[in-house]
């Protein structure tokens, strides 16, 4: 029973016990492992997709940056699967919670920045001053760049949270509209239902795209700093 719009975003409990840990760990069950050369279709497809994404994403990095491959691949697969699983009815999506997204974004961003400051101090500090700025503007620009640097993890986390939450909310609202219009005028309900269909297709795309964007940005921060 949903009392208000946001009950689907509350921490899931089973008989009073929070099962959020199991929900976060669940997508890992969907990627079977095997040490055979030729496996079944689902493993073959997963291997193929992960290879494709890996090659495309890690091509721009130096060998030092490529040590993050496992991390970034796990990240994109986690975000993509949790987003996609959240589209199923009556499921809970961990990435709608800001806490989880902050937990993903801040350590990764901080790791990239600290790497940059530790190994390439001058390059990292030089990022604060874009080329060719007039001398009078330098202090203000440095302040602005610092602020933009510290906003990066916040932006990462909030972007993901907002997109997924907004998508879920919208689907819920339009579903409610369809339900309400069903008894009043069936044709309007049908139109609303079609809107819902389109929105669902968008949500599928958004789920994948958000995962991609998140990982891409982290990899970009890494690239700047290695």
């Amino acid at each position, binding site marked *: 029973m949903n009392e208000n719009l946001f009950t689907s975003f509350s921490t899931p409990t089973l008989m009073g016990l929070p099962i959020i840990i199991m929900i976060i760990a669940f997508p890992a069950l969907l990627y079977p492992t095997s040490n055979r050369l*030729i496996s079944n279709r689902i493993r*073959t497809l997963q291997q193929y997709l992960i290879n494709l994404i890996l090659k495309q994403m890690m091509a721009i990095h130096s060998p030092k940056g490529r040590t993050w491959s496992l991390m970034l691949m796990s990240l994109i697969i986690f975000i993509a699967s949790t987003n996609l699983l959240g*589209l199923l*009815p009556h499921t809970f999506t961990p990435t709608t919670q800001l806490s989880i997204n902050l937990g993903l974004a801040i350590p990764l961003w901080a790791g990239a920045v600290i790497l940059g400051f530790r190994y390439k101090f001058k390059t990292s500090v030089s990022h604060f001053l874009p080329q060719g700025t007039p001398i009078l503007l330098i202090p203000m620009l440095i302040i602005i760049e610092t602020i933009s640097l510290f906003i990066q993890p916040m932006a990462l986390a909030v972007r993901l949270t907002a997109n997924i939450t907004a998508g879920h909310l919208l689907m819920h609202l*339009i579903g409610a509209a369809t339900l309400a219009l069903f008894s009043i005028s069936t044709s309007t309900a049908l139109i609303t239902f079609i809107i*819902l269909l389109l*929105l*669902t297709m968008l949500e599928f795309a958004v789920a994948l795209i958000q995962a991609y964007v998140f990982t891409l940005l982290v990899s970009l921060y890494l690239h700047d700093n290695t």
Partner: protein
Amino acid sequence: MLSRVVLSAAATAAPALKNAALLGPGALQTARIFHTGQPSLAPVPPLPEYGGKVRFGLIPEEFFQFLYPKTGVTGPYMLGTGLILYFLSKEIYVVTAETFSSIATIGLLIYGIKKYGPSVAEFADKLNEDKLAKLEEAKQASIKSIQDAIDMEKAQQALVQKRHYLFDVQRNNIAMALEVTYRERLHRVYREVKNRLDYHISVQNVTRRKEQEHMINWVEKSVVQSISAQQEKETIAKCIQDLKLLAKKAQAQPVM
């Protein structure tokens, strides 16, 4: 520990048991049997090629077979319909906004799977096929290269059998060359020796001729010297008389 004490005590008590004491603790280990199973993991058992058959993508066929003896073909469908209507009517499952979004989502998923499922499955199968084909290709290439090596080896062995022809020809050549050189040298020796002998002969000839000439000259000179003037006049007068006589004789003889 205690067993060892017991065994040593028993050994001192009965000397026949002394042998037992020596292998006391070890015997305990060998009496136990470990690893009775077959722990080997190879060869890996094959995966089933197709999953179990399902109806509606969710319910396995075995369920239908399970209900068939009692309720026939329509049994599980009646059960399903009844359950769904029960949940709906008793509001155990409430129709909310989520219902419509779930209809949309699940509908979209089913449509996508029905439409693109076979092509994706074909793609996955092709990936596997390609992998196997590549390995097979490598294996075939390896076999072929080894086969080629074997054939070449056999050819080389056949050639080696015929090598003696080459050696015979070379031997003949060398013998002929030696013979030619020998004869050439022999001929040269002969020529040299002949040269020297010719030289000696010509030296002798020249000497003799010179001697002859010298002697003739000397004889002539001495004869000429020996003819005094008186003798010369007498000889010339006699010659003229002889000639006159001859002329007379010649005139007397008529030409015949």
